[in-house]
């Protein structure tokens, strides 16, 4: 997958001295911090979690408290996880649907 630099959506402002957790995002190796949700792990690297299946526009979550269901993200294994309320785990392979359609 071609690599292009994306300005991440979220910015860490505290709690940065935590152990690193390795995962992959769209096939590329990435690092999160222990205690990150998947949403934090992905959006501190990129700017979207998925594309809406109707508008095909990017989405990056909305309520962050498990109500809006906007932050689902696909795994390479074909599962779907609610990113705001699932913690990142070592070796997770996540697909953000990034890139032109």
């Amino acid at each position, binding site marked *: 997958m071609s690599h292009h630099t994306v300005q991440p959506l979220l910015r*860490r402002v505290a709690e940065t001295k935590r152990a690193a957790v390795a995962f992959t995002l769209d096939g590329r190796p990435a690092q999160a911090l222990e205690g990150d949700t998947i949403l934090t792990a992905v959006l501190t690297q990129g700017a979207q979690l998925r594309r809406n299946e109707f*508008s095909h526009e990017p989405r*990056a979550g909305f309520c962050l*408290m498990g109500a809006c269901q906007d932050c689902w993200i696909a795994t390479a294994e074909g599962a779907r996880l609610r990113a705001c309320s699932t913690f990142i785990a070592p070796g997770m392979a996540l697909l953000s649907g990034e890139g032109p359609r």
Partner: protein
Amino acid sequence: MSAPLQPAIVGAGPAGIRAAQTLAKHGVRPVLIDEAARAGGQIYRRPPAHFSRPPETLYGSEAARATAVHAAIDDLQDRIDYRPDSLVWNVQDAGLDVLHGPTQTTCTVPYGQLIVATGATDRVLPVPGWTLPGVYTLGGAQVALKFQGCAIGSRVVLAGTGPLLYLVAWQYAKAGVDVAAVLDTARFGDQLAAVPAMLRQPAVFLKGVHYVAWLRAHGVPVRRGVRLLRMEGDERVRAVVWSEAGREHTLDCDAVGFGYALRSETQLADLLGCRFAFAPLHRAHLPERDAAGRSSVAGVYLAGDGAGIMGADAAEWAGELAALTLLADHGMAIDTQRAELLQQRLARLTGFRAGLERAFPFPSDWAAQAPDELVVCRCENVTAGELRRGVADGGADEMNRLKALTRVGMGRCQGRMCGVAAAEILAHATGQPVQQVGRFRGQAPIKPIPIQLERASGASHAGAAA
């Protein structure tokens, strides 16, 4: 009541925790079921255990209250059956169907009595561009900071109205984030007019005044009487556009947090068969509760913001009161003076609560201004124009009819994000007051669950969720 004393509590925020504590004090061991990994609810949301910021940093002026609520639940661990990471997705035959997130297994938790303390989420009124990455609810912006140590962007606009608007702005600015502006749809005159009622809770009132003064002193522009027009950007938000005194303004930013106070999570009360009534103060249909916390269904009690937005302090009192009422209804001896005191405290809040509504009024002309192309349902991309056609062509005059015709409220959030807006559009399009258009019926599963679990549980829930 003939059911054995076997209480369950749904929701471990301030209401649920105080309810559990009260039951435990009386020697009763409740089941406390909570969707989050750690108890505390949203306002007192706790970061993962190995995070290091002190409560003063996380909760500001509410640090003492948050710490007390957290201490209460920590102290209860061996006296209650606490089930974190557990989503209640259905209730039937005096049993709660509960999905355990980490193991993705479901089980049924039987109960004799139930305290529903399901809390609230942001009340959202969509604006063009609200689905862009970088746009979050105010509550979401706060969760990112408290729970994850992250800001939603580097240059953040906070907008909408309600006490949370100023609290989040203050928390963000304190954390060193560039808050480009606070855009309040309420007018300064609204806030002045509300002062007498707000002075019924002088400490809370002064906190609000302090946040605004602090923001101004630290150079954060605070605009009042605005109307949000749109959020601009291609693949992510780049600017907010609003009108103010007849002029259009544009401000560059890379994130927006917005919301219009809170809305109650009522799906579980609905599935339980609780009677609902329109509450003008909350501009919402809410499950009825008496002054002691009883719902219309025997053995079912309601506490906290899930049955009407009254705030975190009231939630603590209502949780304790609901537990005392439950015990008294079961014939147990309780401290009746304490119960009366809690009822008095809650009753006294009503005037203050009306003052808050005066200070941060719901923008009741929102529907009239919403353009046809506005996406109201972000799950399934249903627009305001499609809703209006559901009225004009389909004859919809009630929420569930509108849902059937347009799919609004049928997506994964089940109307949590779009329900308020859809009701406003429907009321405006049909020329009815908003209380006349009804509300989305709650349906199991009340949140999406993996389809194989539905089969495994043997129940036939033809839910709306995918």
